[in-house]
């Protein structure tokens, strides 16, 4: 049996304890150990963004972070994006404007977009496109994703 490490992590505000192997990524652990399967695997090499989460407020590809590195850290995933029954404005705009087709890229894109709007509440179309350039979507052609982000940004600015 491979050696296991005891890790304590706060995920979406709840404390979790688990055992993992040294090579297991944060993505592996979120999905397979904690069964928080909202974070998706599209490539496991950092190229698609489907696994985007934040660790201590920094946006990362969960497939590129080892689970052991997150001992004591605060991890936020798509499952924690809504506030109870109240959706985040980005979640609402993606629903209303059809920013999600098959939906596999959606969790990663929503997290990435939220991090963008935290840093830049009024991004230009080009800024949105470059910020989301690490998140692949094969269904939408990005048009409705960009429009959804623009609409949520506008709402959040109270404009």
């Amino acid at each position, binding site marked *: 049996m491979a050696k296991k490490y005891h890790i304590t992590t706060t995920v979406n505000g709840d404390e979790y304890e688990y055992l993992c192997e040294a090579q297991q990524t944060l993505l592996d652990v979120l999905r397979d150990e904690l069964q928080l399967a909202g974070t*998706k695997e599209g490539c496991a090499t950092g190229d698609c963004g489907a696994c985007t989460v934040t660790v201590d407020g920094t946006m990362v590809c969960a497939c590129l972070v080892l689970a052991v590195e997150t001992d004591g850290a605060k991890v936020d995933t798509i499952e924690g994006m809504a506030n109870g029954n109240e959706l985040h404005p980005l979640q609402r705009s993606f629903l209303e404007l059809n920013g999600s087709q098959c939906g596999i890229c959606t969790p990663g894109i929503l997290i990435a977009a939220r991090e963008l709007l935290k840093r830049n509440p009024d991004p230009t179309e080009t800024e949105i496109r470059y910020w989301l350039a690490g998140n692949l979507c094969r269904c939408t*052609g990005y048009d409705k994703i960009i429009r959804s982000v623009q609409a949520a940004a506008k709402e959040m600015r109270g404009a």
Partner: protein
Amino acid sequence: MAQAHPILENSGFNPDKKLKIVGSSPIKHDGLDKVTGRAKFGADMFLPGMLVGKILRSPHAHAIIKSIDISAAEKLPGVKAVICRDDFPEIKAGSADGDMTRNAMAREKALYDGHPVAAVAATSESVAKAALKLIKVEYEVLPHVIDPVEAMQPDAPILHDYLRTKGVKGADKPTNVVERYELGMGDVEAGFKEADVIVEREFDTKPMHQGYIEPQGCVAATTEDGQIELWCSTQAPWVYRDRLSNILKIETAKIRIQQSEMGGGFGGKTGFYPEPIAIQLSRKAKRPVKIALTRNEVFRATGPVSGTKSRIKIGCKKDGTITAAEAELIFQTGPFTGSAFTNAPQAMFTRYALKNVKTVSYEVVSNRPKVNSFRAPCVPQVVFGVEGVIEELARKIGMDPIDFRLKNAATEGYKTIYGDVFGPIGFVETLQAAKKCDHYKSPVPAGQGRGTAAGFWFNRGGETTGTLNIGIDGSVTLILGTTDVAGSRISISMMAAEELGIPVDKVRAVMADTHSLGFNRVTAGSRTTFSTGMVIIDSARKAITELCKRAAGIWGVSPDAVTFEDGFCKPAGANVGSFEPLSIAQIAAKTMATHGAIAGHSEMNVTGAGPGFGLHIVDVAVDKETGRVDIKRYTVVEDAGKAIHRLQVEGQFQGGAVQGIGWALNEEYCYGKDGRMENPSFLDYRMPVASDVPMIDTEIVEVPNPRHPYGLRGVGEVPVVPTMAAIANAIGQCIGVRPQSLPMSPPKILKLIDDHKAKNGG
């Protein structure tokens, strides 16, 4: 002959009907799960005691498998099952099932880099991976062939000794050419004699991958008495079930497939990959087994789309009338047949009212992964050439390219090369809308080039089943079989709500497992919203008949004396008596006292699909130093027949166009001399990202298909058909020479620019 279904004879299409729901854009009911992370895709199923399955793959493009020794792997603690070819029933090579089982697990030979040769199920991923390393496979490496033209040569390495070319009389030698297919009409020679201008060009395109972001994922579980439960991401649950039944020799009633949410398929999930392996592992281990493919496996062993070589020749008169067209086409299909290449000669020129056409097409095996469908299978690759020749002819005779297409546009009554006669179609309307749109009317910005291209797809019907249930409060559930790839659940719910005269929020659709409905053909070819829509509309109409019967019972009148309107049963006339109209909810509340639940069910082989046509307009800029192409502006104009859910129709147009942009500019399979794929990752196989593309403007044309109750055609395929051609035409306008090879990557464009300069004296 069975009688045609009444709704197929008369859809009840009424152009003057005021629609309340169809044509709007309500929030899709499955959307909430998708924006909150709750939606369950192929890899998102967890069962108690579940094992991890991993697949050992051939590192060789072509090799005899002399022996496989799994004994050391089996002994590793934590390993619960190891399987290889010996664990699959023997099926004759060269048959459809024989090909299928051999693609799932190599038997005599490994036929491509990535071909499965063995698999393990273990208690953890790390144990499973360690076990793969303990499997000993002895290979005898054979010469391989990657390029289809090389594979056609007499001295090429032969993949299958048994293969003889279909469609060639007296073919008696082993070959890599699966089939020669000729299709034509009229007299091509006479046609070319009439032509004032003839253009003939050669083109080639590379295999590209469907690129769905969700790798195939599945969980198989089995019981002691041989029942199989399979959870998987698929476009074709029933087709998977029937084929699994054939290759694993298990009766269909013992295989229950539940489709997961599907994270993109685009044709690539119409055939199985890890599913039979997960089932056999689970049967051997007596535990549930999950297999989720890695991206590397997805690239090396699933998908891709046929690469092609083509020669296309078209002639026209000075007034623009096309007099003849001719084509020779070669399709690479991977090691097994199944490219659906005959679509290409049927569709490539179809949209122009041609009389004289000759095509010869070949399907060729080579040591690459078996190709799979992709939106409008095999058509975009050849339209890339056709629409290049069309624009060149138009320019040669000094005609606007859209006018040139209008001059030759097929209309109702045209008999196509594949024998169908067009009903009402919207190609002319599509071209007119394109001419009128702001993009086409505005001048081409300085330094940029503009291209246009047109496309066609048949659209499809086929075997479909579905059920509509009315609850005791009058709300409605739908049981659907065809996979929802991009929002069909909401579109079909909208049509049910429209029929029943209730708000769409009172309708909910679920995806059935294969035990719950009869056979449903694959979700492909733009058939789902059309076909399942038809079945559910029919179910709704049956439920309405029953509602009227119940109302008649309650009132004590004859059922003929009751009509249904806007969600209410009403007396058909004043002489029936004066009764307050009864709502669906009121009737449903009494079902206990009447005759029990009210439902509608329908199954049919849906016919009457309406062909779709599109025209794309694109402006590009080319960096003359680097050869990089920038898409500046893009417009998709397409006839949807009727857009049921407008935002989703736009989404199909936009998504298709951007996939085409990737195919046009970057995407290709690269092979080393060793026959291994060199770019099996998203880093090296570069699909478009958000910063690569502009907004994609859309123009929905609606020329109804009267064979459907709401006039719908189908919109999934056409959006990718003209894209590469339109971009190539635009690049041609920019640099003075029209590219003839995909992808139009910077080094290739740079070379075109340099050669063009050299030819024209710098």
